[in-house]
């Protein structure tokens, strides 16, 4: 996998924090069968940076991401998006926040099968009752390299193209935070490179903040920082990661 990354490392130096957690804990179940997914995690996600979250299965990385994106709530501690404490928001406000301030890219099943690529891209804005101007949608479609395919249904697109539509959807509302959950998990290496390049460029060229959960050290190599989780705790934070360094760090975490 490519070790050469686009420039833009300076983003890590910006003091602004797009999102952060304070002693965030998440316990599933109760009593003897309780499982602690997050155990007092305090971590900052700097604005304008690309952060990868890694860890072995069951380390709590998906839970951290879900809490960060307002899809799940912590059992203790706080999660902030900007200066908004997500714990204080009710269901409706959280939904509104998701569609205006957060962009999502999932591992698979990112798109509504009944809507065209362009319709999928403008879906969050339309749900919010915002009319996007066509030029803007076109620009984003161009940026992800899907010009000429905007009227296609997801079933008419390849896996890589579908993920690019998902990235475009995450970009189009200018969100404060883009959350990606194993966005390349189902893709071959070439399509993975395309999607990771797009996320990288979202940070470098559009100044977005990206948090990505991944298993793949190569994918983490695209990030500015890597946060390692193990047993629900922060195990390590690495800046200027490369695939090899990440791989080494992961070996240390694996029990």
């Amino acid at each position, binding site marked *: 996998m490519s070790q050469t990354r686009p420039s833009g490392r300076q983003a890590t130096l910006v003091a602004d924090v797009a999102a952060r957690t304070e002693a965030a804990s998440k316990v599933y179940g109760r009593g003897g069968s309780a499982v602690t997914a997050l155990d007092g995690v305090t971590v900052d996600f700097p604005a304008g940076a690309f952060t990868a979250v890694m860890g072995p299965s069951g380390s709590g990385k998906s839970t951290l991401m*879900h809490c960060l*994106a307002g*899809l*799940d709530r912590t059992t203790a501690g706080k999660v902030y998006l900007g200066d908004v404490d997500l714990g204080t928001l009710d*269901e*409706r406000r959280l*939904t*509104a926040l*998701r*569609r*205006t301030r957060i962009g*999502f890219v*999932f591992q698979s*099943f*990112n*798109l*509504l*099968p*009944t*809507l065209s690529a362009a*319709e999928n891209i403008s*879906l*969050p804005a*339309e*749900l*919010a*009752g915002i009319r996007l101007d066509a030029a803007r949608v076109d620009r984003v479609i161009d940026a992800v390299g899907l010009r000429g395919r905007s009227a296609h249904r997801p079933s008419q697109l390849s896996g890589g193209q579908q993920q690019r539509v998902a990235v475009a*959807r995450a970009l189009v509302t200018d969100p404060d935070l883009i959350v990606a959950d194993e966005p390349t998990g189902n893709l071959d290496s070439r399509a993975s490179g395309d999607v990771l390049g797009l996320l990288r460029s979202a940070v470098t060229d559009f100044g977005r903040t990206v948090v990505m959960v991944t298993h793949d050290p190569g994918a983490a190599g695209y990030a500015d920082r890597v946060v390692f989780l193990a047993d629900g705790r922060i195990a390590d934070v690495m800046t200027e990661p490369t695939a090899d360094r990440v791989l080494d760090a992961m070996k240390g975490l694996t029990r």
Partner: protein
Amino acid sequence: MSAPVVRVTLRGLWFRRRRLVGLFVAVFLGVAFLAGILGLSATMTDAIDTSYQTANRGVDAIVRSGTEVASGADEIRGPIPVSVLDAVRSAPGVADAQAEAKGAATITGADGKLVTGLGPRDAGTWIADAALNPWRIVAGSAPRGPADIVIDRASATAGHLTPGSTTTVYAPDPVRVTVTGIATYGGQDANGGSSYVAFTLAGAQRYLLGDSGAVSDIVVRADTGVAEDSLVAAIGAALPDGVEAVGGRQATRDQIATVDDGFLKFFKAFLDIFAGIALLVAALSIHNTFSVVAAGRARELALLRVLGARRSQALRGLVLEAAVLGLVGSVAGVAAGYGMAAGLKGAFAGLGLPLPLHGVVFTVADALIAVGVGVVVTVVATLSTAVRASRTPPLAALTAVAVDTSAASRARPVAGLAVTAAGAAGTAFGAAGSSDVVTGVAAVATLVGLIILGPATCAWAARAAGRFLGGANRVNARIAQRNVLRSPARVASAGAALMVGVALVAMFAVIGASISASTTGTLGAMFTGDLVVSGGGSAYGNSGFSPQVATRVAAVPGVGTAAGVGTGQARIAGTAQTVTVADPVALARAFTIAAGAGRLAVSRTVAEEHGWHTGSRVDVTFVDGRTETLPIGALYRPTAPLSDYIVPADVWSAHNPRQLVSAVYVVTTPGADTGAVRAAVTSIAGEYGGLAVAGRAKFVDDTVAGASTLLNVVYVMLALAVVIAILGIANTLALAVAERYREIGLLRAVGAGRAQVRRIIQWEALLTAALGTVSGTVLGVFFGWALSSTTSNSGGGEVFAVPWVRIALIVLIGALAGLVAGSRPARRAARLDPLVAIASE
């Protein structure tokens, strides 16, 4: 069937029980309705059998007039001379013979009000010989003088009458009587829903027959050991011409058979039609649910195939699954059928068609029939899906689940369009040519064609709807519309069930409106009188009233004409007919029917049937067995409340001395004080048990309303089919929501609120319901037009009227029902945790 297939099937059924609830409910409701209807029919049969068997229990022979002008429940025969009694008594083998005179009499209660009920107001003769009398005195004693009566316990209770009470009975002329005894019938308080008044023979002859030389019939008890056949032969040898003897048991069998073949046959057929409709709608619903569930299981079936199951094993498993579901649903349905029968009985009573029944009879045979029909309907409705699902290639286990492709068939829309077009053309042709067979068959073909065309119509309608749905709900509506488009076959099938139900409701609404408009128009034009005096009672209780009323009303100052019109039975051109009896001259002043003295008036409908015209001569056989040939003096457009034949009163009364009247039509003289006339007429009406007096407008309205009673019953009977259809839509949507957990989760993740998700599902429900309702309404109006044209072209004189308000209401209710159907699945979808949906890999 191999054990693994059975085991896998039964386990699977239990595992999927939640998804199959909708299917179960459809089977359950359909079978419950069928069982209820079978139970109601059995109850009617049982009530009628019991009534006749009780009446003739100790009677070995009946001597009666040999001429019968009407059969079935309304069997009417003329009187016989009382002199026959001596001849019967002296016949060999006769132990006892008693004459009876029969008629109708309405009882006044202690409060001065008439005792009304569900059945006829019977009157007869108290017979001392207990073997020949089905009634038993439970309080007081038998009548001694002509002004003494025994009455049934139900009427005594309702009218607060006890032995010793004096009251008035209208038999039909008012008679002051003393109640000497209270009696029961076969242990029951009354004979079904009818009331009973028993006079002495002399009293019954005087009041009921008006002739002391005549009796209605003679009941005979045989000596011990005398066979029915030889008794009948012995008596028959002693009888004059025109009088016959029949065996008691033979008479019972004949009476039951004529009722079974007549009224009961019609009644059961009427009920069975609606059971059939409910089952058809249930079948459409079952078909749809099963195909959705099967589509969701394609992978599991493919896995079974990969593991070595043959295609036939997969098919057997699916058929077994349907059969088990059908059986469970049907057994539960039969259990609920008892309550359904009771509910139907209540519904009929609530709509003014009370059935005089005690309890509900439910036979094992009916239960087995209902279960059998339920299982067969379920298996047949699911067979095509089972065959298709069993063909799932093993490879499907490893690849993405195959999508529903039934809309993609090119042949289907073409075939659907062809059948629909042919059906519609045939319906219109049949309507123009007044052939009800062609119209009916073509109408069914149109319906089938539309169901075949369903997916294409649905896709087209959803696209059209997509263009109209704008505004703030744009994105919700668009997603819903796309969901409809992804499996138009499924939505069309859910909508089709509703379409069938709504089409029938709309059709009956149109027919009802057309009949109402026709009656209003025809009667309004034909009736030229000012007031109408009528019994106004219930459907059964109105036995007619005394002709004295007409005579007395005619004497009121300001009354020009008072035409007393009765109803009777006669054989015309060989068949038993209900006829209207009226003085042609008086009738010509109240109606635009001028037959002339001694002449018949005949409706255009029957005139056309028989090829009669003015001047044709027609044979009329009267109740006394004599036949007269009468010329036709006038033809008229048929309309309630007149029957198809009007017989001159003077000719009639020569054969029927005690004819009652059912209405008096009053025409005032020019310049008369109508208020005073009305007051005087109302006063006379009051003396005859409170007859109803109506002005011209109210008379027309009441007649129209009377014709609509049956229509209301039809609506109730169709309601269940519509309910099953709505549940089918709810079920299809619930399954769709379950299938789309991940999509809904994704929507929620990218920012759809709970309310938005709910609205998306609601839109889908609305689109489905609108498809069924709108197509059903259009179809129903078309059918209504075709049927009313068919009758109008065959001389019925019906006009075509569309009840726009009612039609709009049907569409509105259909749309609302769609929203109701969608509300539960929508709430479930809205409650879905976005995280769970995303995680469900």
